[in-house]
């Protein structure tokens, strides 16, 4: 297989927690992302799923270098992303873009759609000469399914789905190779979600994009992703192809998440085993020793508290971070 376009190794982001009125001192670390490794191949979509607070969005921000990582490396097209400075760093922006979660706050309310989508060209004037910019903006609006006539309108005149399309057009403007989608549809109505997901799929084919697709909804991710990583408390619990994760999950956490996905077949109700997780996600300031999931896991043994399970190939033939990784026997009975 060809060299992955993005290779992330042991990425760590800790946020110091400060306390005190006058003299602030650090009282702890929120371990938002704590040793995450994955690779992204060209033209591929990698889904990242997990509960709220598991570090998905922090991962996105660190990858966009909106936050500096505490440690770890990310090699993008053969270059170490985190050591880029000045001009090279700016060039990186052209190849990697982000689509943000909330279309209501991700567009500057005081700028017209034309200015918003055209801003990438102003920041990177080498991409488009001044005269051709309006034409390019019109094309972008057309590509994302908006009328180019909307150029002079303001964001508040659009619906949520349309606003997200504007955000997508802005991310596309510089013709990036990788787009990080930070829950791009979770703020939208279900009917609109499908439209936006389809648009993202079409754009991927048209422009050969690679996506890191972050979501908290397994069913949304399945539609689009080639591979899926499941995150729990800042670590990847399991990572594999769409089929491996959805049909043959081996990590108890993935199994629990999947069993909670509603099935659109009333006859199956009551026949399938729903794994109910008890308790809350532990504080990322003070995660449990060993396996982070052990406090809520029905399989937990002594070893889980003592030894951190490595993310390695286990039962099922894909990477899983559980000492007792195994495919569950047929979940749906009857």
């Amino acid at each position, binding site marked *: 297989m060809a060299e992955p376009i993005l290779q992330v190794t042991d990425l760590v982001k800790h946020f110091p927690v400060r306390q005190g009125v006058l003299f602030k001192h650090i009282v702890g670390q929120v371990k938002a992302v704590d040793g995450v490794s994955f690779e992204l191949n060209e033209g591929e979509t990698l889904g990242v799923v997990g509960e709220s607070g598991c570090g998905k969005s922090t991962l996105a*921000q660190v990858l*966009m270098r*909106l936050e500096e990582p505490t440690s770890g490396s990310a090699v993008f097209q053969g270059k170490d992303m985190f050591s880029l400075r000045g001009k090279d*760093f*700016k060039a990186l*922006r*052209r190849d990697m*873009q*982000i689509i*943000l*979660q*909330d279309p209501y*706050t*991700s*567009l*500057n*309310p*005081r*700028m*017209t759609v034309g200015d918003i989508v055209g*801003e*990438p060209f102003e*920041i*990177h004037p080498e991409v488009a000469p001044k005269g051709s910019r309006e034409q390019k903006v019109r094309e972008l609006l057309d590509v994302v*399914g*908006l*009328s180019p006539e*909307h150029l*002079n*309108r*303001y964001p*508040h*005149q*659009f*619906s*949520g*789905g*349309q606003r997200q399309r504007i*955000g997508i057009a*802005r991310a596309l403007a*510089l013709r990036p190779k990788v787009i990080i989608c930070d829950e791009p549809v979770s703020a939208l*109505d279900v*009917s*609109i979600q499908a*439209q936006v997901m389809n648009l993202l799929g079409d754009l991927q084919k048209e422009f050969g994009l690679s996506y890191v697709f972050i979501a908290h909804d397994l069913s949304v991710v399945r539609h689009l992703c080639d591979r899926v990583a499941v995150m729990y408390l800042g670590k990847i619990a399991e990572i594999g192809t769409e089929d491996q994760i959805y049909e043959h999950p081996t990590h108890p956490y993935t199994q629990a998440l999947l069993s909670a996905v509603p099935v659109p077949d009333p006859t199956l109700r009551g026949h399938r085993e729903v794994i109910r997780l008890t308790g809350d996600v532990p504080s990322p300031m003070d995660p449990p020793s060993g396996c982070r999931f052990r406090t809520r896991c029905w399989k937990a043994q002594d070893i889980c508290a003592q030894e951190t399970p490595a993310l390695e190939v286990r039962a099922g033939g894909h990477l899983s971070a559980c000492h007792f990784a195994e495919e569950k026997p047929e979940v749906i009975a009857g």
Partner: protein
Amino acid sequence: MTSGDATLAPGVPDRAEKSRSLGADAWRELRTNPLFVISCVIILIIVVMMAFPGLFTSVDPNLGDLSKARQSPGGDAWFGYDTQGRDIFSRVIYGARASMLVGIGATVVQVVVGVLLGVLGGFFGRWVDVIISRIGDIFFGLPFMLGAIVVLTTLNPPQSSPGQVAIILQVVLSIAVLSWPISMRLMRSATLTAKQQDYVKAARSLGASTPRIIFRHLLPNSIAPVMVYATIALGANIGAEATLSYLGVGLRPPVVSWGVMVSDAATYFETSPHMLLIPAGFVTFTVLGFVMLGDAVRDAMDPKSR
């Protein structure tokens, strides 16, 4: 609004009507607000008085005829004469200029200084913010009037006679120096809110420079509270000018201002109240005009209050 995702959202008129910005929305709101119309009429009259006093009167405001000293209002002179026999109507008209100059000047200086420091503190945070905020606190902690009196008496010892321009500048600066922390704080907190917004993240992801983020994204989205404050502060500054002049440390003759007139008239209030009431009334109306304007603008700018 979910049905027509690819087309325009219903409710947005698809006519050839020019696209409306937030500013245009605010303007539509303002035009129908009686508070706004009244305050604009007041301010317009004062501004015309300030720019073209000759339109209102042909009498020299400094021409004194002692035989008419302290005459009450009458057909000859609508507002009567002051203690040196000068026409009060004429003086009130000409006084608008100095009063408004001080009011506008002090407001502009305090808002510009406050906005710049506030946006810097809010954006950069950390030690920049600490230094700016603490300096602001120090100036904020000084009692406003006392501070201005000390500054002005230090600059102009009792026997000195500063020039017209010099004294106006001094009053402007002494007011601005002691009141900029208010707009700084307003701007800082608005910037802190705006900074968290996703569009700032999006701009940073695109590689936008710090000046671009500050001037294209943060300033336009956080200036509204300061603009509202500025209209109210303008009124207050005109009042402050009057107070300082009354205390004898602000503007002084031969400059004509409403504060100077009140100051001159103070000792004659019991015998000739018109000398004091007329310029004081002008101060009141002007301040009222600006406060009303500020209220109306705030209502129009803040969608939540609609």
